[in-house]
């Protein structure tokens, strides 16, 4: 318990729209331990990004709003923190990198200025020391010719380089938690590998916990120690990487794993889960996955299952396992 850096309990983040309030995140519960890499997996639209923005306190409001639950960061509830307090935490204790390295850096300021900005917000370093620190960070993330780089503008860099800069920027104040929202989705496969290795190294070297949001199970298998699988704004299964890949409990997790191509098995068609992710809030009753689930039975459509702890410490939200 005590080594949870981040603990999210029953978080609800809703967006108001013309059709009423839509829960993008609907009672999500998970935790990140100090120094570990937690993978949060799910299809597009299941609330992964909204979860991370909620932790950062950056849900666009209006229309977004955190309606319930708590986000405990080292025991402090961030849903109740003032904007001033959140500014101290953002970039300093919790840092974030985004999916789109091409557009996540400000095009009209130099790389160096953008790096030093973050450092100088949170430390009392002089300009000169902040510069040195920024240079160190760029070297740490494996960039070369860093003094030239400091004077460059984002458009002069490739996507991979920009993502490295983003990571350098995020790691500059030695955060305790790094939230990486699909950090490699927009990159080439070879660059993806480099960026992931870099993040893993930083995780080991600096002991920063990472919350890695992705839809790529391959990435998760390689990087993470634990996984939380999200579906329609909720965690449906949580456990260690080994357990989940060896013995997925939830039909959705099984579906996800089956839909990853396997080089050893020659298939004519790749498996895909039938149907689409329901719109947030579309399913009011029962298990949200029931309409797409091959193993659903009458109870699934009527009652919503709880997240149930299984014998090996993993958790699953499915009536199949409640029966046992």
């Amino acid at each position, binding site marked *: 318990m005590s080594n949870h850096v981040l603990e999210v309990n029953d978080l609800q983040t809703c967006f108001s729209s013309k059709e009423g309030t839509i829960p993008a995140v609907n009672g999500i519960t998970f935790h990140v331990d100090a120094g570990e890499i937690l993978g949060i997996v799910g299809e597009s639209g299941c609330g992964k990004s909204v979860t991370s923005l909620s932790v950062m306190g950056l849900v666009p409001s209006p229309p977004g709003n955190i309606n319930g639950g708590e986000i405990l960061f080292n025991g402090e509830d961030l849903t109740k923190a003032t904007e001033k307090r959140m500014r101290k935490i953002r*970039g300093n204790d919790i840092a*974030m990198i985004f999916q789109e390295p091409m557009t996540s850096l400000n095009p009209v300021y130099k790389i160096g200025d953008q790096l030093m900005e*973050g450092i100088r917000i949170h430390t009392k370093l002089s300009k000169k020391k902040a510069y040195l620190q920024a240079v160190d960070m760029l070297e740490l993330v494996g960039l070369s010719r860093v003094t030239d780089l400091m004077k460059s503008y984002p458009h002069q860099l490739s996507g991979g380089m920009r993502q490295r800069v983003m990571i350098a920027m995020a790691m500059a104040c030695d955060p305790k938690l790094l939230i990486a929202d699909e950090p490699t989705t927009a990159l080439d496969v070879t660059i993806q590998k480099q960026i992931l290795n870099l993040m893993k190294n930083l995780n080991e070297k600096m002991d920063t916990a990472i919350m890695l949001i992705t839809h790529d199970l391959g990435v998760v298998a390689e990087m993470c120690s634990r996984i939380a699988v999200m579906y329609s704004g909720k965690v449906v299964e949580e456990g260690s990487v080994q357990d989940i890949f060896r013995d997925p409990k939830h039909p959705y997790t099984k579906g996800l794993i089956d839909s990853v191509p396997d080089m050893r098995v020659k298939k004519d068609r790749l498996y895909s889960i039938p149907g689409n992710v329901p719109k947030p809030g579309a399913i009011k009753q029962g298990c949200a996955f029931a309409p797409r689930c091959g193993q659903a039975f009458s109870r699934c459509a009527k009652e919503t299952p709880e997240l149930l702890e299984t014998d090996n410490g993993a958790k699953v939200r499915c009536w199949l396992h409640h029966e046992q």
Partner: protein
Amino acid sequence: MLNYTLRRLGSLIPVLFGMSLIVFFIIRAIPGDPARTILGEKASEAAVESLRADLGLNDPIVIQYFHYLGDLLTGDLGTSIRTSSEISGDIWPYLAATMELAFVAMLIAVFVGVNAGILSAWFQNSIFDYTAMIVALIGVSMPVFWLGLMEQWFFSLELNWLPSIGRESIRDPVEPITHLYLLDTLINGNLDQFFTVVKHLILPGVALGTIPMAIIARMTRSSMLEVMRSDYIRTARAKGQRMLLVVYKHSLKNAFIPVLTVIGLQTGLLLGGAILTETIFSWPGIGRYVYESIQYRDYPVIQSGILVIATIFVFVNLIVDLLYAAFDPRIKY
């Protein structure tokens, strides 16, 4: 950068040449005989004819144009038919008066317009946003002559706060050096006079600046709204940057290019379009100078006045083009 500036300056030559051509022939196309106008209805036909010959009005029109162009290239804007004095010497005090007025108008327009636009975007859909945008809409739609008259009535007649007409106090005229009175009074070290000049500038400045202010405010708002939704603004916030700097530093510099374009165009329009304001406030500016010359069919003055205004317009936009690079490093020359 220097290379680009030179190339741009070079490309202005055909533009300016074309301008002189258009101005010259349009004015010749207007019916009416300047010699007759100068001498009056009762002058004899012989006198009119001899004046026409003196003024070169009997030459073929192409010859007249090349005379005009040759004079222009030597910096000679011609001689006023009405006052018989050199236009190049006459025009500066008028131009200075207009430039001073346009400068104050744009200062007000940019400062108020940009800030109103920023705050409207920052607090989108708030009461401030709605109020500012309704005021801006009224500002764009308000006729300048009506606004000017209302200002004079309220601030001069009713409240007696500000002078209603002119550039300076009649009892205490400014001793001209550059003819930019804000500068002249400071050079003379006469602070009382400086503030008198400032007071004279406020009402016409507001009248002239209202439309550009409203346009700038609306442009800034829409540009800022777009930028503030972008990923790098989220990055800046994720760093823990305070909102004030996120808005004024990270967003504004990105949002400023379309605003800069509008500012450039409006500045150019202001210089030529100040006639109404200048007439209402008895401002001795270039608009009035040209307007009065039209009444007298003083061809050389009309030509030169329009040409000077158009040239300034072209140069203001050149400066804007060069400024783009200062705001956006992605723009290459």
